[in-house]
């Protein structure tokens, strides 16, 4: 690459946000940029932010689609609160995102899109959005992206629509210059993606290069950034989002369990991608049943589990509500089943594309009767893989439905993932009937320690039996209306779940264990909570963090951990569901709450403020 005459800003980490109209290709632009940064050796975390409407009116705030990427030379755990660099392809994008740019940051706008009509559509009252939004202290790069793209492609014989479609590549080229990034990755991608259309390949590459060159031309007045690669462990890496990681974790579990994987599911945002990815994975032998509704999704999975498959159903909040009765069936039938619930804003249809943690109580208690199941939560896009794997392991080994909670933020967010070796993962072993026990075996006989019954595949000679949703005799599994038997069965089912605390890790404490303040979180808020705690620690402020992945049962030492602290602040994206759950389980402890319900993750800034305030109290 060429030498630079401009000022270069050295940084440990940077946040870039690409934004434009839904049709401007910002998701692709952002993905290409983050993959390039990851290949370059930065640790990354990304988050897409797109409208619920497929085609919201062009040029309006409602139609703005964004993609944020945070990359750095040490580990990054969140996509970042505020952007150092914003790309705004039109006035609506600027309007929607200006408040998310760090004071004094860099904003690249396509000036050609800032005409009177678009300014009005975006809700600007004057023809000077920079002054109107008080962006005078920011470094604004006013690039005529549309016109330069048109100019560059005018002799190629492309139609106007195709020409305009390439303007995101111009913006991308310019951002590559800003960060001095190699473009091979993107070049290869374009060549492969449009292999059938050489003209489009040529056009995109040309525009990409010209965007980069535009940076060279304006460099005298524009500072660029330098971020060193991260010092990361040897190995193979890729970027992955939470949904794909979940799907792959389930596949990994099926391999380790030596079981066929069956998914019964119905599309719902933001869980659909799990269904789509597993539908693609016929190469891995996955059977996917796109059902007529969520009830059929789980019921086919229960049937597959009865037949001996590793059975899974995936959904989001409204779908989990529909599955309630069938989860109860899996509870009483004592069949293994994984239920993945990718949480979104509720109630009802709520905020389909936005994140929230408000299905916790539904997962724990949203069923008739005493109906305990395992509830666990992933806490980063990449550890969706781990937790999907362990959800399946627990389901199979403990003959129970397991609800795995992720959320829209984890599902769509990506991180750099060190590709794991399956050999490092434990075996998954179902309890089967030993040949010597066949003569005396009964369907609901349990292991005296774990309370687990054995799993008999339909088709096994000699072990025919009937199961169902009616209460059963504690041994034979035959229908029983006996009150005392019922009470024993209720207690066995509860004890079976409780026993699992022996097979899950103890709760650890991160940050500064010696502190007055323990921050408590669960699930998808980990990145933000951890970053806030780490940053405070660098500032000399000591805060401890207990972040929960296992919710039912809770880790064995959870009470002891909580008991150690003077002040406990439970932070969650709901009205306090986990806080209330802890109050119920450990009523001898005082809990304070910090809650947010804006469809957005916490920001590190607001968390730090809260923690400091509480420490000073």
């Amino acid at each position, binding site marked *: 690459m060429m030498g630079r005459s401009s000022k270069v800003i050295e940084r440990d980490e940077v946040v870039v946000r690409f934004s434009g109209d839904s049709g401007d290709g910002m998701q692709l632009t952002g993905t290409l940029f983050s993959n390039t940064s990851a290949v370059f050796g930065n640790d990354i975390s990304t988050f897409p932010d797109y409208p619920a409407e497929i085609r919201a009116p062009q040029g309006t705030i409602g139609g703005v689609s964004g993609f944020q990427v945070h990359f750095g030379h040490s580990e990054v755990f969140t996509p970042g609160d505020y952007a150092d660099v914003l790309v705004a392809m039109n006035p609506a994008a600027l309007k929607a995102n200006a408040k998310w740019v760090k004071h004094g940051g860099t904003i690249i706008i396509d000036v050609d899109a800032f005409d009177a009509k678009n300014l009005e559509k975006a809700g600007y009252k004057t023809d000077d959005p920079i002054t109107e939004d008080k962006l005078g202290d920011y470094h604004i790069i006013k690039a005529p992206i549309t016109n330069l793209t048109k100019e560059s492609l005018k002799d190629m014989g492309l139609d106007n629509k195709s020409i305009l479609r390439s303007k995101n590549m111009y913006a991308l080229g310019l951002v590559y210059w800003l960060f001095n990034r190699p473009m091979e990755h993107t070049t290869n991608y374009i060549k492969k993606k449009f292999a059938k259309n050489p003209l489009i390949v040529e056009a995109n590459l040309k525009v990409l290069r010209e965007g980069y060159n535009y940076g060279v031309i304006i460099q005298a007045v524009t500072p660029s950034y330098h971020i060193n690669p991260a010092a990361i462990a040897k190995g193979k890496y890729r970027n992955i989002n939470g949904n794909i990681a979940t799907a792959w974790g389930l596949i990994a579990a099926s391999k380790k369990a030596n079981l066929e994987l069956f998914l019964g599911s119905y599309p719902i945002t933001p869980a659909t991608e799990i269904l789509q990815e597993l539908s693609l994975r016929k190469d891995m032998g996955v059977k996917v*049943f796109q059902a007529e509704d969520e009830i059929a999704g789980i019921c086919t999975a229960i049937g597959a589990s009865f037949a001996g498959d590793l059975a899974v159903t995936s959904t989001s909040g409204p779908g989990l509500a529909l599955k309630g009765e069938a989860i109860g069936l899996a509870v009483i039938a004592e069949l293994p089943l994984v239920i993945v619930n990718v949480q979104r804003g509720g109630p009802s249809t709520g905020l389909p594309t936005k994140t929230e943690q408000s299905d916790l109580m539904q997962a724990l208690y949203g069923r008739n009767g005493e109906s305990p199941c395992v509830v666990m939560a992933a806490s980063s896009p990449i550890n969706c893989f781990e937790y999907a794997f362990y959800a399946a392991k627990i389901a199979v080994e403990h003959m129970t439905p397991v609800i795995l909670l992720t959320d829209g933020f984890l599902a769509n967010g990506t991180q750099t993932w060190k590709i794991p070796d399956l050999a490092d993962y434990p075996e998954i072993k179902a309890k089967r009937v030993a040949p010597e026990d066949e003569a005396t075996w009964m369907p609901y006989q349990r292991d005296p320690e774990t309370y687990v019954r054995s799993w008999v595949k339909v088709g096994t000679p000699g072990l025919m039996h009937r199961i169902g949703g009616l209460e059963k005799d504690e041994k034979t599994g035959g229908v029983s209306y006996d009150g005392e038997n019922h009470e024993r069965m209720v207690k066995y089912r509860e004890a079976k779940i409780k026993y699992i605390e022996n097979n899950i890790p103890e709760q650890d404490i991160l940050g500064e264990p010696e502190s007055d303040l323990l921050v408590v979180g669960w699930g998808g808020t980990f990145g933000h909570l951890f970053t806030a705690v780490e940053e405070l620690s660098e500032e000399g402020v000591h805060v401890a963090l207990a972040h929960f992945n296992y919710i039912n049962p809770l880790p064995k030492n959870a009470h002891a951990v909580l008991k150690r602290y003077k002040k406990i602040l439970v932070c969650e994206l709901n009205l306090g569901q986990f806080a209330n759950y802890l109050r119920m389980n450990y009523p001898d402890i005082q809990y304070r709450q910090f809650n947010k319900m804006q469809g957005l993750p916490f920001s590190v800034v607001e968390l730090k403020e809260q923690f400091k305030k509480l420490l000073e109290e």
Partner: protein
Amino acid sequence: MSEECELKYTDFKSDLSVRWCAGCGDHAILNAVQKAMANLKVEPHNVAVISGIGCSSRFPYYMNTYGFHTIHGRASAVASGVKVANPNLKVWQITGDGDALAIGGNHFIHLIRRNIDINVILFNNQIYGLTKGQYSPTSKRGFISKTSPYGTVEDPFRPGELTLGARGQFFARTIDKEIKLSIEVMEEAARHKGTSIVEVLQNCVIYNDKTHEAITDKKYKADRTIILQHGEKMIFGVDNDKGLVMDGMDIKTVTIGQDGYTLDDILVHDAYTHHGAMHRKLSNMDFPELPVALGVIRSVKDNVYDVSVEQQLVDVQAKTSITTFEEMVNSGDVWEVE
């Protein structure tokens, strides 16, 4: 053990005592299913009997096979999962008119549309038996029950028509007490590849006694029902002298030798044609205008879902370069840090 072996119907009886009311039509249906299974020579451990909720859905407990008494309306879905997970199993679904056509209507039509190889025995007593006598989606307009004390103001589903409307390829009808016919029909249903719907006109002695009596009573049966056989003339009646002919767009009953009708004019049943129009007319025939059709009304070969699922796995796996978990996670954009 081989697929085929000598079996008695008692091999399919579980040791649980049957709990239906004395005189309930379900007893006879249980009997017929057990005998059909014995005739089919399928080993009990390869059979899964899946039911929903209702009196009829208690059925699996009485079968010495694998059985699953699931939740109300969802038997079609659970059975679909069993069959797709292991297509080698013989999957039978037991369901009531409420279970299949009210709460489970959605699953029922989609099961049929997909044509999964499952035999569905639909116990049609035109009432909710288990909840003690409320009208069902097959109760006739004006039917008086506990929840329709002044008579219903809605028209019923006709299960055959619904099946055909959902692209059903196999539909048959029988009567609970006609065990011989039931056995025949059930065997054909089991041999048919794809979803088979067998509607059994079932009597609930307690809450809807004699609901089918007008056609099932010995006195009238021969004149008010017709047993259809593929390739045979549509003839019925105590004296075998009545037949069905087309009259414009409609079917009508004639007496052979009267009004100039001869045996040659009588329609021949073709259960195997994929054209549904005639099957629909036949399945909709009702007393008193026409005899109620029994036997196999439609039996048509078509793509079978569970077979296609397996085939697609084979096809994709034959072409893909990704065969292991390692290859999958290493496909696409992957880089190495040395």
